[in-house]
């Protein structure tokens, strides 16, 4: 197991901190679970704060809350406590980079730029990006992460190296207090393994298992990562466990899609920067790491679905509500389009059901989805409310085209939209448009429906 790391080209210190390999590179397996957790650890004390939707895990976690809520609350805030542990993800970055300038991370973003004569403007852009990266890094390295600040910054996109920890913070899985992370992660990962053990040693719910089995090979089939057995077995366990623990909805097709941005993002923390995570075979990782990725994915998926569970219960009322909201919104934003759809007898549910059920993941690329989730996770109700504004912005984007089409052409167009080559810029434009619609109409739509 450990030996297989040599081909990843990770140096010892990187491997031991990032991938929690045994301290020697000989391939002997360390049983130390805590090493696995170490990557999240730094010191500091917590300022408990409430976020509006995704609250800190310790504040609202429903399962075995044997936690320190009260004791934490009573702790004095901001005891001076300098971080002593360098965050390993960041070490991974700087250690992978030859520092030809003061700032190694610049090379990380665009090594070629350093070698070429670049225009002033491009350099400026790089510098802006770099300084943003450093500010971000600083933010998540704080002993107590300022969640408001993090949300503000993350809304505009998270540097990919900092995405795993940022997402786990934003979703409320990782405590804002770095002191508590190690224990928390250890506990949740152990709990996950226990639950898996428990569910997979007894007889499986045949129907649930059957549906998951059918859907696993149909999950992101165009991305190599999802063709690997190791990936498929992990997703299978995650989905099945979630399903049996949430009998009101159980497994619903599309939830498989929702697990993958987490999985892929958390996996990326365990592999070398130059390696494209979408091509990576996770079976080359030690079991400890796979278990950790799985557990983190499971809990974060659980958090996400908590906010949209009525999308997946009987008759899917959450989706119906969102479809109606979308319809109301589009009527206000683009009356002509709304009228045209009416004239053509196109019903919103016919094309936007899937948008709600899979959070537009069937419409845009995985890369775009991941960028979109930076923002969704930073919004108070990103997946249940802001998403509707994003859908409105998305529909209105095609307004000119759609208005020239009849029923059938509209359906075909929206089923297979020309978004394959969308870049981060396109997604960001969509998100900022959605933001505007939200600020204009947020309270108006509720009133409309009365």
């Amino acid at each position, binding site marked *: 197991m450990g030996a297989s790391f040599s081909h990843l080209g990770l140096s010892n210190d990187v491997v031991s901190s990032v991938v929690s390999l045994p301290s020697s590179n000989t391939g002997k397996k360390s049983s130390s679970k805590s090493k696995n957790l170490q990557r999240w650890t730094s010191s500091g004390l917590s300022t408990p704060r409430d976020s509006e939707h995704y609250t800190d895990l310790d504040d609202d976690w429903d399962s075995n809350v044997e936690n320190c809520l009260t004791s934490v609350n009573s702790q004095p805030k901001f005891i001076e406590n300098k971080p002593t542990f360098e965050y390993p993800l960041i070490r991974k970055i700087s250690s992978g980079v030859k520092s030809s300038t003061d700032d190694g991370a610049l090379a990380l973003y665009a090594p070629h730029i350093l070698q070429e004569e670049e225009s002033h403007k491009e350099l400026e852009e790089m510098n802006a990006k770099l300084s943003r990266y450093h500010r971000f890094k600083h933010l998540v390295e704080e002993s107590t992460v300022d969640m408001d600040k993090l949300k503000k910054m993350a809304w505009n996109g998270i540097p990919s190296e900092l995405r795993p920890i940022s997402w786990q913070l934003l979703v409320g899985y990782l405590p804002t207090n770095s002191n508590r992370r190690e224990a928390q992660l250890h506990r949740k990962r152990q709990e996950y393994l226990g639950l898996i053990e428990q569910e997979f040693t007894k007889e499986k719910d045949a129907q649930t298992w059957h*549906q998951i089995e*059918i*859907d696993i*090979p*149909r*999950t992101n*089939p*165009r991305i190599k990562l999802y063709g690997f057995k190791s990936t498929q077995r992990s997703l299978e366990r995650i989905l099945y466990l979630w399903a049996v623990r949430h009998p009101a*909805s*159980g497994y*619903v*097709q*599309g939830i*498989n899609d929702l697990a993958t941005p987490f999985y892929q993002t958390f996996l990326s923390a365990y592999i070398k920067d130059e390696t494209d995570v979408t091509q990576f075979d996770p079976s080359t990782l030690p079991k400890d790491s796979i278990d950790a990725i799985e557990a983190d994915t499971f809990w974060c998926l659980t958090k996400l679905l908590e906010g949209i569970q009525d999308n*997946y219960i*009987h*008759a*899917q009322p959450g989706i*119906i509500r969102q*479809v*109606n909201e979308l319809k109301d919104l589009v009527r206000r934003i683009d009356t002509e389009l709304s009228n045209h759809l*009416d*004239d*053509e*007898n196109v*019903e919103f*549910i*016919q094309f936007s*059901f*899937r948008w709600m*059920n*899979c959070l537009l993941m*069937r419409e845009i690329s995985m890369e775009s989805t991941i960028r979109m989730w930076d923002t969704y996770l930073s919004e108070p109700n990103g997946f249940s409310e802001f998403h509707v504004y994003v859908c409105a912005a998305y529909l209105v984007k095609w307004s000119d*085209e759609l208005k020239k*089409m*009849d*029923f*059938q*052409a509209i*359906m*075909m*167009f929206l*089923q*297979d939209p020309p978004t394959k080559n969308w870049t981060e810029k396109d997604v960001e434009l969509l998100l900022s448009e959605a933001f505007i619609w939200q600020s204009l109409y947020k309270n108006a739509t509720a009133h409309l429906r009365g």
Partner: protein
Amino acid sequence: MADMEDYAYDYDYLLKIVLIGDSGVGKSNLLSRFTRNGFNLDSKSTIGVEFATKTLEVDGKKLKAQIWDTAGQERYRAITSAYYRGAMGALIVYDITKPETYENVSKWLKELKDHADDNLVVELVGNKSDLEHLRGVPTEEAKHFAAENQLLFTETSALNADNVDLSFEQVAKAIYNMVKKNQLDLSDYSGAKPPTGQTISLTPTPGAESNKHKSNCC
């Protein structure tokens, strides 16, 4: 965009057909084989309902089949059953290698009975006939069941295209013949706007129906 020639309204009749059956039996691949001559070993699961069309010729008339492919999972029943309304034909698909999917055919028949129009043409389709070595549902048994319930019947393979066109054409013809014979009542039609004027259509004239189906489906 996908098919501009269809966009030109060059058809005489518009037939609405639904594709139902358990998850994973090959509905989406039957549809892509029929409409685009494509097959995907790795297609994504269908969420809710998807849509495709193809124009056929019967008796020198152009029949445009407007086909709604549905998600098979139970949870989606509330959404998908809304699409049965106004359908003139239905294909109930099962997987010949999976007897459970065949056993569920009666459930699907009941779904149609509860939600679709009475004079609907129904065909039983046993898909994946290329997997003969894994067969779990004897042809004769399914054929017998189909006859008993007045269903059309075919075995198909979306993979190697066997009988795929035939199975859709069979349904389209049956609908067409029925229409010719007793002028199917189409007042419950819901779906695309009919072509403007020049062609004979089964569908109501624009405007007459356009406000009938405004309510959300569930």
